[in-house]
């Protein structure tokens, strides 16, 4: 009796809305928590990272200037897509981490809800955190937050999907473009998430995903002159110090955002003050007179 042979796929990078393989031609085997070989995925190189920065930079103007209402709708659309394809992600998480389907489902549904939560912040954070300032002179003076630009986000190994979504949403909701370095241990849920994003209305380049080895990419992230900020959720002290050194190069903003795996399931991961890690406050003055 002949059984049908499964079709195996190689999970690719997500750059500028496209899915290239690594320019280096390298790949790595994705393994489950139990050590079974699942599928292969692209092993991103320095050049891939640089390409990602170019893609992100070119996406910043359009995304940053989209109306807050529009960004909110697009993030909500991403949540809709995620809901639609939840089963796919549940299966991906379950086979990668060998948790039960119920537990995987909890992570996916929480990721969907978190995306919805942050989608609502796009047109509110300016009102909550911005201000009109009562200066003593005859001037109208106001401060508004603006996206800083290109942000590199390092996701922790676990929870591979929920942490990534919780880290990326506060970065892009304000109009930044993100380059996400996925979980090194369980990259497949992230790669699948990228495929879902690609079919949402999120413009190409707003979220770019690299899979591979963090330690290999970190020195290039720290030294890149066109990266405005780093959000470090990887929770690796040695890599943190290397990334933080990037502030001494072009004063890119560095913020550490590491939570214990269980905390990504809690309200701690819904902190709106994290939006402020990747925005700049601009203060404008104008005289009042006739």
């Amino acid at each position, binding site marked *: 009796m002949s059984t049908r042979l499964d079709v195996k796929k190689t999970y690719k990078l997500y750059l500028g809305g496209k899915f290239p393989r690594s320019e280096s031609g390298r790949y790595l085997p994705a393994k489950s928590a139990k050590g079974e070989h699942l599928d292969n995925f692209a092993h991103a190189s320095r050049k891939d990272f640089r390409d990602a920065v170019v893609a992100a930079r070119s996406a910043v103007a359009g995304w940053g200037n989209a109306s807050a209402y529009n960004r909110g709708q697009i993030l909500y659309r991403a949540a809709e897509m995620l809901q639609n394809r939840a089963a796919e992600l549940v299966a991906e998480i379950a086979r990668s981490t060998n948790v039960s389907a119920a537990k995987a489902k909890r992570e996916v549904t929480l990721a969907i809800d978190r995306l919805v939560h942050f989608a609502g912040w796009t047109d509110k954070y300016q009102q909550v955190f911005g201000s009109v300032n009562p200066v003593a002179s005859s001037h109208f003076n106001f401060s508004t937050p603006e996206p*800083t630009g290109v942000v590199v986000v390092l996701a922790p190994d676990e929870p591979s999907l929920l942490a990534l979504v919780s880290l990326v949403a506060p970065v892009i909701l304000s109009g930044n473009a993100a380059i996400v370095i996925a979980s090194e241990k369980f990259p497949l849920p992230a790669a699948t998430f990228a495929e879902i994003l690609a079919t949402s209305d999120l413009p190409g380049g707003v979220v770019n995903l690299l899979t591979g080895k963090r330690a290999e990419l970190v020195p290039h992230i720290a030294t890149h002159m066109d990266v405005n900020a780093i959000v470090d959720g990887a929770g690796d002290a040695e890599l943190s110090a290397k990334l933080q050194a990037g502030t001494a190069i072009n*004063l890119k903003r560095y913020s550490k955002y590491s939570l214990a795996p269980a905390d990504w399931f809690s309200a701690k991961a819904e902190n709106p003050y994290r939006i402020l890690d990747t925005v700049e406050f601009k203060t404008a003055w104008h005289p009042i007179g006739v």
Partner: protein
Amino acid sequence: MAATKIKFKPVKLSAKRAVAAPRHAPVIPLNDRRLNFGNKWDYAPAPEDSKNYIIAPRHELFINGKFTAPHSGKHFDTINPATEDKITEIALGDAEDVDLAVRAARRAYEKVWSKMPGRERGKYLYRIARIIQEKSRELAVLETMDGGKPIKETRDVDLPIVAAHFFYHAGWADKLQYAFPGRTPRPLGVVGQIIPWNFPLLMAAWKIAPALACGNTVVIKPSKTTSLTLVRLAQIFQEAELPEGVVNVITGVGETGTAIVKHPDVNKIAFTGSTEIGKQLAQMVVGTDKRITLELGGKAANIVFEDAPIDQAIEGIIAGIYFNMGHVCCAGSRLLVQESIYPKVVKKLRDRIQTLRIGNPLDKNTDIGAINNKPQLEKIRELVQSGADEGAEVVQTQCKLPERGYWYPPTFLTGVTASHRVAQEEIFGPVLSVMTFRTPEEAVERANNTPYGLSAGVWTDKGSKIFKIVHQLRAGVVWANTYNKFDPTSPFGGYKESGFGREGGIQGLAAYCRLD
């Protein structure tokens, strides 16, 4: 690229003359029609009397509420840059002194300041603000003597804003929960602060007031050339009965500041100064849990559109670059003028700088005081020389500069291109680089073409254009139809390599609070 070429003879600054005596440097003969003031602008001297104020011959460190001789036993002279006369001696603090100060600050933090109700902390700040107001004139005179700033500015700008900063933040001390909706803010601990020489007391107020309001204690170091008024401020803290150790002042040099940054028991660093030093400090805190905010250099574009109110704009350009001798990180040092109005703007500018009065900073009529220190004067000379060498035309006022002291006349350079050093590097002196543009898009692109992003100016009478350009400029503070305005309620700080964090306003409080 100018629509109409204005004829100026380029200044011939030989390297030797530029270094030796720019006060005698050849000044452009203004060969076409110009204002003739005759002797109508000769004012009688009107100096502020400095003899009323007694300056002790020696100033010590302020540690744990007491004035203490430095561990090194060494002192250095602080001079008046307008006369090169010695004013007094200042203690040279070292790492041992910093350690004592940090210990005192830690004790004060744990035993007193962090436990004190916000309302009481606020009352100390109110009290300090009132004493500063009372002593405002004395502090202005000392600031002018020690830093070379014209008394008009120290009296009317620096000191009023210093007091206002303490008043503003005093009121926050018991209201912090309203600054951070949904969070309970807590202080960070011991804060190390390093401030520059361009606004000595004002920078001290910007740093100390929010730190104390949020419940932190402070170890602060002034710049070597301008320690005097901060030591006076320490006397005010004594007079206000601020608990000992809450603020500690360690005077000294660069290594003194390094010792503060590297001290393991400091929780946060706040620095205002050059981008170069800022990057070094950022490197020093790598791998630690110290927080850091940096307010660094700038190379601000001041953009004048053809539909701008021209005379108002000229005043804004002057205020933008010649305020405080251009020793201003947010100075509007790159003037971008729309081509159609370039000849008019340059002509008016050329006339206007002739009316700026340079001389004794203590004189109430003085517009431009002394350059703060000799290395800075040399840097200004060197950069203007580079501008001339690279082909820019140098326009300076025709005025006599005092014989002694550090002086540089108000200067602007025309024919500057984006690649010139004077268009890229922060000069931090009374030197303006003038460039042109044709379209708003070009103006924005040129304005943003710098690693800095502290401030910018926009001049146009069209409201919608202001909002569009303000939005597109990558700078932390944008002045529209005004320039160089400051207020404690208004956050200040940069994008890109001008640093991170904000000072002032509700946003500035975040730099001194823990929110988790």
